[in-house]
């Protein structure tokens, strides 16, 4: 990520958009550059949080290899914008 997050640059915004497969118009790039900077600055608030102890030392949290009920196919697809023959349907991707 950028060295100085409070000044996100348009190139970085374009790159992130490309990775996320989102197309941005030029004015949107400007808008997102400002928003990126705002968000990154906001995260800097975390620097002010005092250090706290780690949570309990969890390790090896596992479950046995035993089958549990899956969702009904109808239920699994219920939130999908588009479906076909039990599949999620989306635009062409390469």
């Amino acid at each position: 990520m950028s060295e100085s997050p409070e000044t996100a640059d348009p190139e970085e915004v374009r790159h992130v958009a490309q990775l996320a497969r989102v197309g941005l118009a030029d004015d949107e790039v400007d808008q997102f550059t400002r928003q990126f900077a705002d968000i990154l600055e906001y995260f800097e608030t975390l620097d002010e949080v005092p250090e706290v102890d780690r949570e309990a030392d969890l390790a090896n949290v596992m479950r046995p290899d035993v089958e549990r009920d899956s969702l009904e196919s109808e239920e699994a697809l219920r939130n999908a914008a588009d479906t076909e023959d039990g599949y999620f349907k989306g635009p062409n991707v390469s």
Partner: protein
Amino acid sequence: MNVIALQLANQRTARPVLALECERDVHRSESDPTRNSVPLRFTLPAPNQGAMTAQTVQQGDLVTVVGLEVHVQLETDTKIFCGCSTEQTDEPNENVCPVCLGLPGALPVLNEGAVEAAVKIGKAIDADIPEETRFHRKNYYYPDLPKNFQITQYDEPICADGELEVSVEGTRRSVTIERAHLEEDPGSLQHVGGGIDTADYTLVDYNRAGTPLMEIVTAPDFRSPDEVRAFLAELEEVLEYLGIFDAERDGSLRIDANLSIIPEAEIDGDNADEISADALEAANRTEVKNISSHKGAQKALAYEETRQKNAIQRGRAVEQETRHWDEARGITVSMRSKEEEKDYRYFEEADLPPLRVSDWKEEIAIPELPSARRERFGDEYGLDEEAASKLTSTKQVADFYEDVAGEFDPDLAATWVADNLLGELNYRDIEITEIEGRLEEVKRLVALVDEDEITAKNARETVLRSMLDDGRTPDEVVAEEGLGKTSGDEVRQAVVEAIDENQGAVEDYESGDDGAINFLVGQVMQKTGGSADPSDVNQLLRAELED
């Protein structure tokens, strides 16, 4: 004109640098057109004190270097982070739940069975299982990943620094396995109405999403496609022995291979296995994806090896790129790849606490592995390498052989299991696992031969085949076909009859035509329904005709 100016420059550091000065490969039609205008030009760093020697590289001076990333589906009952079944079904999106669909708020819980399988692999390749190992998120956006990240392992894999011994054309070689890590399989996509670039739309099935995978990464230790094939075949055998892998399952093995061609001079004469990281860095490599079997790997890499060597010889550069193995067309094609490693923004998976399972290595038992078993079969049963290798090809075959060899002569057992049984199964495209319930019948058949109840020929050609084709038991076939060895009296009777009925042949034999005896043997065999022993008949006939 394309001029090859492949030069080796020896710098003060003694680090040889490979330099190529050439024009682009104009035949890369499938590549991104925007890249076509840029001539590739690698120039030399300034040589030090004229230490540079120029030489034209001949085919014989080039060495192929291959490293592998092998993805193996682990055969657990459920997925790696949820309790959905891993069974393959005909219906899409049948074995899915909030976890493997990446629905908000769903939390992954690690499957103990997948960790056990990973530890077994670690043990089999003699890897270190670190004190602590953990999971990371690998971020990328593609619809086969419902969460937009894949849970995998990054800098703390469950297995590190292992090796696997492989026999390549009679020479044993050890292949270094740098690491092996656990991760989740993505879902599967169908590009409808065209190829990957031209499809109208995409259908997504998440049944496969979350199937446990082990990614096994080797050092660049391979020098030929044949070595790669031998390694993958050995690896498959080992995984099957461990009982954690089903080679028959569609997509259970997926291979990415990195191949580069470097000048032979880069290899240290004393240690042919060692190639400097610098030399590998200097040569452009291609990553070949979409390979799904050891035979496919051999074909894909042989193609890629030739393609790169041809390019170098014609003075063209090999581009560093990802290529897709098109099995149907038998070629590799260039693929656009958008992400670099840093773009994956790996970070720790906070929903999964670390694993501390190094002591499992002691607790979890693994069976004797194929290479050890092959060697023992040679020592214990006196088998030659070919037979031992056939008989250890799968654990089921080896177990059955030991079962038979324990009761009968080991050579007879080897003939029956390696040649007869496997031969007939192979011919019918049947796996030994498919007739597991009938192996007792095969043993009964070996007993009939061993006790001289039927001839070996009938046992093999009639009884075994009928067992496999008609599902009859050996005793049924013997009784119904009248194959029980004919008693001595009956054979003698048939010999006398054959002589009486075929005086012409008898005269031929007596006038010195030794071949006529074969005709008479055939007549006797016919009379006894094939149940007599032909060499006994031959002797009886000769004795009878002497009188």
